[in-house]
């Protein structure tokens, strides 16, 4: 039973995308996919899992969709349409850009949809997550999430949001939109605001979709960069929480990092370097590659990291990049120089807890305990991740003077 549902979830995006191409109707595609699952749950336990379960599910779902169209065509004059869609195009993708899932991801992440709807649709239609699971992940009632998804699907149909890969001229911008959705899903898993410390399901899903996107668009270096970034972050997951407490990078047990994920991430970063068209995700991945390359915290190549941040700041002159850059500055030029940089960001980052954490750590290194304590307090007031709260509380309480 569980095995069948796992196959179904893995193949869900393919099934829906294939049916969407044939029938041009997301609701029909989803209903037919669900019907195919019912058939699989009936048959597979007795007959065994077919050799190509994804193909079997898609074929079965397509048959169910045709049945439904025929049934409805008796009522309204869609009969001709049903005859015309007798199309037995094979399930397997015929080429990279032909993959139906690629079209579907561009539809789900279309800029005409609200950002939260893009995330929800991507997880639902490509990730095969249930509405209940998505609602739980984003802490909204299931009915709210169901409405959000229904409304977005209605807009796709009503406004004729296209089901195709954008033209070359629009591709970089539209790919950026897709990557933003994947990164958001990943971060929600990694830095959960949902009262739990890490949501493995979301990080895993973002990486899975990132891998699919990378296999479909191998020549888009930002796609490679984001996948590398997620892998190098995920590699440190087990070392990042000890007990119920967050462990910051310098204190992590590097032996607990996942070597296979790091090797894969580093290979992808090298791939990006060869292409030499740097972008935001590639630079963030490269920074993470430097961290994961160091044998211990003291062995970190901070000047390399500072160079990468300088490059990133030129591309993305946001206060958040400037804040992260200050961490490298502190290592190279000392905490006083870094604090001066950070204090200039106060107005823009007042409500952003990492700003106060960074200040607290720099003040601590400068021996300004009272100010450090106040900064920890502000940070603690802004976060709801329990592991991070536990860590910051301990740091604050260690302060002397």
């Amino acid at each position: 039973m569980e095995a069948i549902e796992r196959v179904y979830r893995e193949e869900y995006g393919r099934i829906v995308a294939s049916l969407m191409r044939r029938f041009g109707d997301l609701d029909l595609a989803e209903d037919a996919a669900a019907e195919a699952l019912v058939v699989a749950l009936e048959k597979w336990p007795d007959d065994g899992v077919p050799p190509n379960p994804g193909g079997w599910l898609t074929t079965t779902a397509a048959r169910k969709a045709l049945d439904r169209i025929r049934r409805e065509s008796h009522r309204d004059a869609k009969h001709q349409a049903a005859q015309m869609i007798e199309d037995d195009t094979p399930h397997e993708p015929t080429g990279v850009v032909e993959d139906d899932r690629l079209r579907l991801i561009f539809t789900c992440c279309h800029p005409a949809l609200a950002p939260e709807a893009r995330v929800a649709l991507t997880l639902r239609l490509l990730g095969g997550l249930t509405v209940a699971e998505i609602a739980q992940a984003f802490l909204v009632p299931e009915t709210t999430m169901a409405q959000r998804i229904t409304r977005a699907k209605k807009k796709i149909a009503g406004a004729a949001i296209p089901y195709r890969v954008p033209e070359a001229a629009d591709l970089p911008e539209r790919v950026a939109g897709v990557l933003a959705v994947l990164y958001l899903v990943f971060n929600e898993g990694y830095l959960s605001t949902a009262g739990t410390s890490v949501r493995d399901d979301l990080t895993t899903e973002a990486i899975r979709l990132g891998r699919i996107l990378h296999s479909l668009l191998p020549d888009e270096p930002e796609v490679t960069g984001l996948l590398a970034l997620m892998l190098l972050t995920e590699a440190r997951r087990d070392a990042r929480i000890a007990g119920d407490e967050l462990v910051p990078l310098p204190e992590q047990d590097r032996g607990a990092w996942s070597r296979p994920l790091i090797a894969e991430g580093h290979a992808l970063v090298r791939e990006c370097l060869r292409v030499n068209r740097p972008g935001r995700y590639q630079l963030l991945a490269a920074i993470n590659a430097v961290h994961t390359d160091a044998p211990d915290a003291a062995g970190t190549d901070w000047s390399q990291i500072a160079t990468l941040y300088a490059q990133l700041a030129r591309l993305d002159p946001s206060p958040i990049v400037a804040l992260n850059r200050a961490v490298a500055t502190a290592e190279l030029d000392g905490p006083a120089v870094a604090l001066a940089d950070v204090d200039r960001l106060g107005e823009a980052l007042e409500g952003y807890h990492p700003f106060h954490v960074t200040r607290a750590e720099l003040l601590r290194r400068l021996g300004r305990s009272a100010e450090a304590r106040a900064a920890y307090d502000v940070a603690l007031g802004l976060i709801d991740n329990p592991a991070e709260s536990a860590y910051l509380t301990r740091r604050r309480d260690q302060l002397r003077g």
Partner: protein
Amino acid sequence: MPQYFLAVNHDEKSIAAMAEMTPEDMQPMFEAVGAFNEQLQAEGAWLFAGGLQTPDASTVVDNSGETAVVTDGPFSESKEYLGGFWIIEAADLDAALEWAKRGSKACQGPVEVRPFQEG
């Protein structure tokens, strides 16, 4: 083919800005909109377009009851109003958004794209 309503809405800010403008200031915008209209026609996307007088010139007729009631003024006393529009035909939303980008550039203001209900 799907049809879209491209609306040019005026708000307090754009109304104030327009009030400051002389006919000479407006001339480049009129020319740009004229050129955009010609592009729409040349590519077969054009169905209809028009600029509207301000809501001061509006009259509302309500014949939903027993007798028709005619009142002076716009339907709702909103600070925003529809200044003009295009009705176009486009293959899909991406094509309509592409026209909207060019329309927005021409009229120097935001353009709202709304699909028509299927006929």
